[in-house]
């Protein structure tokens, strides 16, 4: 636990010293209005994604479950796009995370309703792939229907995410729902442990299965929904982190929750610092998108994980 704390503190410090202005102590405006929201959002959104992945893998009893992969992130982005481009968020700022939450909750609800017979079967993952393709298509459709004629150019942000030039307001909007969502999810440890022994065993242990599932959906929708609303669609964090930690902390899903939260935060912060460093030192037209970096790491990871699952 102390190791995690030291890593978190050191990387947060390093993150505050790195940006387009170069490596070093920036002036106050840059520090408070750019680096702090950026660092804070990376930690917060990453924590939400890592924890959501661990909970989804536990509740669905499938190590390939990931909020992005299941289409929950895409649905969240769709909800946020709806309130952002049609001006609702300009009038009432909290509509942005609320839109993301509504989209993510709707996505989860559809998926779990369609696969209510066997939520832990392999079908749900494929259904998630279909949902994520549908969400991307609807996202493109929504952006081409948006009143701003250039909205479609911004599809890369909503599909691949990014934290450049976010404001303190974005951070303030994201903190309450993500913290609340994570608090809900972190309390599911015992329920997930019981579920890992099978639904019948869990029922005899007095664990309410339906309620556990509902709380998981609510927590994931809050954490992933608000995250996608301020940082766009970032995939693979929820897949990589729990699978990476499992050999270290064991198979018990409840034991994965806290480590996945912290490791998710660290991983997204490192990915974002890599994006900033690449923008600073590589001859690129713009910083690479955050989701590009997580996919570069996550796609090979998924292949390895899938090979282990399929005999």
């Amino acid at each position, binding site marked *: 636990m102390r190791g995690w704390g030291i890593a978190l503190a050191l990387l947060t410090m390093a993150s505050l010293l790195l940006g*387009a*202005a170069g490596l070093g102590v920036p002036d106050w405006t840059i520090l408070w209005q750019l680096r702090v929201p950026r660092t804070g959002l990376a930690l917060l959104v990453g924590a939400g994604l890592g924890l959501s992945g661990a909970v989804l893998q536990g509740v669905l009893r499938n190590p390939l479950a990931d909020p992005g992969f299941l289409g929950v992130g895409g649905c969240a982005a769709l909800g946020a796009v709806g309130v952002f481009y049609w001006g609702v968020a300009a009038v009432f700022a909290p509509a942005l995370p609320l839109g993301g939450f509504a989209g993510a909750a709707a996505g989860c609800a559809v998926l779990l309703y369609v696969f209510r017979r066997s939520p832990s079967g392999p079908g749900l993952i494929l259904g998630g792939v279909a949902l994520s393709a549908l969400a991307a298509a609807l996202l493109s459709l929504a952006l081409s229907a948006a009143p*701003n004629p250039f909205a479609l150019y911004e599809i890369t942000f909503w599909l691949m995410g990014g934290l450049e030039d976010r*404001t303190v307001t974005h951070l303030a909007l994201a903190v309450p729902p993500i913290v609340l969502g994570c608090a809900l999810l972190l309390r599911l440890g015992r329920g997930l442990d019981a579920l890992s022994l099978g639904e019948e065993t869990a029922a005899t242990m007095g664990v309410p299965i339906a309620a556990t599932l509902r709380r998981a959906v609510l927590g994931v929708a809050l954490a992933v929904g608000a995250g996608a609303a301020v940082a766009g669609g970032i995939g693979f964090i929820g897949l990589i982190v729990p699978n990476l930690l499992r050999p270290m902390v064991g198979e018990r899903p409840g034991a994965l929750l806290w480590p996945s939260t912290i490791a998710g935060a660290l991983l997204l912060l490192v990915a974002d610092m890599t994006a900033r460093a690449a923008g600073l030192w590589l001859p690129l037209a713009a910083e690479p998108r955050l989701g590009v970096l997580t996919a570069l790491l996550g796609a090979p990871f998924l292949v390895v994980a899938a090979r282990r699952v399929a005999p």
Partner: protein
Amino acid sequence: MSKSFFVSFFSKKEDSSFLKKISKKLLLIYMVVTPAPALGARVVSLNLCTDALLVMLAPEQVAALSPLARDPSISVVAAQARSLPWVRPDAEAVLRLHPDLVLAGRYGAQAALTVLRSRGLRTEQVDEPTDFASVAREVTDVATALGVPVRGAAMVVTMRARLAAVRPGQGGRAIFWQARGFTAGHGSFGDAVLRAAGFVNAGTGRAIGVEAMLTHPPDVLVTEQAPDYPSLATDLLTHPALAGIRRRTVPPALLACAGPWSVAAVEMLAR
């Protein structure tokens, strides 16, 4: 109605400049004495910039404009366009209108243009002007293609007179910062506007973020006024961290397309 608009557009600002008075009179005389030539010619415009020139030079010839022409945040002829037909840049839709001439830009709708040309339709493509001299050439070319060269000449004379009347303001190093963080580089139309208003252009033509802007802030940050519809691209320009940099804004429609109307942006910036 359209003629009165044409005149009013170029006489918005009262100015004592001799050249300007003369050009205004020339235009009025011309408008009164010459009937619209090429009567019955039907012209389709597939590009926001040619939309504006078509409506200003020959409103009676409009068969259809591009859909963007009706958007007041980017179109200088939005009011007139609302009562005129529009068409998507789609070959089939354009063919149904049986136009005599199709106006388009160098980018976008190129596949449609290829089809239209192969069907024997007359097309006129205009380049994006990079300064006011090339605006003048474009106006002349389009006016000639429309069969209204005298109207085009009058438009050019008025534009030159207004430009000549601009007295540069306080000057200094300026960056014209556009959607998605792009800066106007040397040789761009934004550069021409900044120089005409008396600024030294400190932009490079590359996109820069808020942090880079704060690291090397210009004396004046020139941006377009926030449009009616939100987008990430324009949210960037109003980032609160930039509050400390002096800023001038211009209505986005004036510079969405480079044209004679862009002189109004120069006048605003020079003030």
